[in-house]
């Protein structure tokens, strides 16, 4: 499993079948405050890297989440509808947003790994 981060605080974790799980980082959920709603895409939708993939709403803001890579949406986290708090409780685990079947795994190459991301966050 490879995990990478964007400088917009999205993470993407790819398994050995080319399915990527996408969500926001722990740093992001802290900054957002209590998450009240996540607007997820439809399963089957094709998204390109950089497209708006989801919208996360907290009590004070609504933030677009951009796709870190291109692919087809194969699953969305339906549990978030009744339980948006899990984004705050476990952003990088149970609070995942969607799964993409990647069209080009090489798109992840210019994203930050865990160590680089932590450095980046320290500098903010």
């Amino acid at each position, binding site marked *: 499993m490879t995990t990478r981060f964007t400088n917009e605080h999205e993470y993407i974790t790819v398994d050995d079948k080319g399915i990527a799980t996408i969500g926001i980082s722990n740093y992001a959920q802290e900054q957002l405050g209590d998450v009240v*709603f996540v607007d997820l895409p439809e399963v089957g939708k094709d998204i390109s890297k950089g497209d708006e993939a989801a919208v996360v709403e907290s*009590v*004070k803001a609504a933030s677009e989440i951009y796709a870190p890579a291109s692919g087809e949406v194969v699953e969305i986290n339906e549990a978030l509808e009744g339980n948006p708090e899990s984004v705050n409780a476990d952003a990088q685990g149970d609070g995942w947003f969607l799964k993409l079947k990647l069209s080009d795994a090489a798109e992840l190459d210019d994203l930050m790994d865990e160590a680089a991301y932590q450095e980046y966050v320290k500098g903010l």
Partner: protein
Amino acid sequence: MLSTIGVDNIDDLFADIPEDVRFKGPLPLPRHVGELEVERILSQMADKNVSASTVPFFIGAGAYKHHVPASIDHLIQRSEFLTSYTPYQPEISQGTLQYLFEFQSQVALLTGMEVANASMYDGSTACGEAVLMAHRVTKRKKAILSGTLHAQYRAVVKNLSEFSAHEIDALAPAFGEKADLIEHIDDQTSCVVVQTPGVYGNLTNLTAIAEAAHAKGALLIAVVPEIVSLGAVTPPGAMGADIVVAEGQSLGVGLNFGGPYVGLFACKQKYIRQMPGRICGETIDADGKRGYVLTLSAREQHIRREKATSNICTNSGLCALAFSIHLTLLGEKGLRQLAAINHANAVKLADMLSENPGVELLSETFFNEFTLKTPKPGIEVIDQLAKRGVLGGVPAQRLEPDRPELANAIIVASTEVNTDLDRAAYVKALKEVLS
């Protein structure tokens, strides 16, 4: 001061206004007139109007003359209500937020819907916003506007759609709901907009239309310009409407020369995140006590900007309060009684007026407003009635100038304010006009 802001003369501040629309020269007013004389001049001007409060009055078509109890004005003029503004800071606005929450609850109950917002500007803009909301929910762009929809509501929907790629299928004016409305619904339709009671008076059972719309994945928007009708007819929510918009003017607000009015907006719970306007919610404070806040703010412009559900960032607070107080004073029983009196008065009047040869009742059903066919053009009939001191209604062709087939029709409203004397005056005047 001009030099401080870097401008040579005051005319430079108007640089954005095209030359050809600028007023040149002095205003055509006397340089000086005493206050007493000004009062005299303006009163004489005002006296040229025949006003609703002084003559038998039967004009409706979207704004209705109802009795507004004095207690309402007395209460809304309390400075706490009159001067308070937007309740963005809940800690100091619990009074405002509580009445908005009660208002929303009343609107939801009246319309038979699950949720309602804290009001829109008026019924027509609420209608326009409902169409835009349906486009967002269904991700489609085509709205079907029934022939029962008020021409001015239709114009507002068109205004709001003009600069986007939205399509409008506006059906011809209809005196009774025609079956062909359902035929127009296809899988490109985002919504069907039906007014009931319709602009020409007729009531529509929305159930079949709701089913037909839902079968094609479209929403049904019900429009109710005379809110008192809901004291007598099945609420649109019970007939399957997805969004209900209405004009609240009839309760607590009065005619006010055209405004301010109060738009009511209600919808199904599942669409609440696409609903425009302010929403007040109930919650508990840090001590566990019940409190109220504006909520679901991430729909709104100050958070979502260009992706907001609407650019509305206010509501019609004082009018909503007046509406709410009036409805509270009436209660369910009082509202039903009020509606019954309205309908009875309209039936009485329709019967009396259709006794005239050449006058025919065109509305198959009606609540407190109906359309009559007249042997002479409606515009002429209304004008002649006015000269005889009776404000008899609205000529259909005034609402639909491009429809010569409506030339000989007038829309007549009758509420609880009309007396036997009013009706007698109308009958007498109409007889003279038609002879």
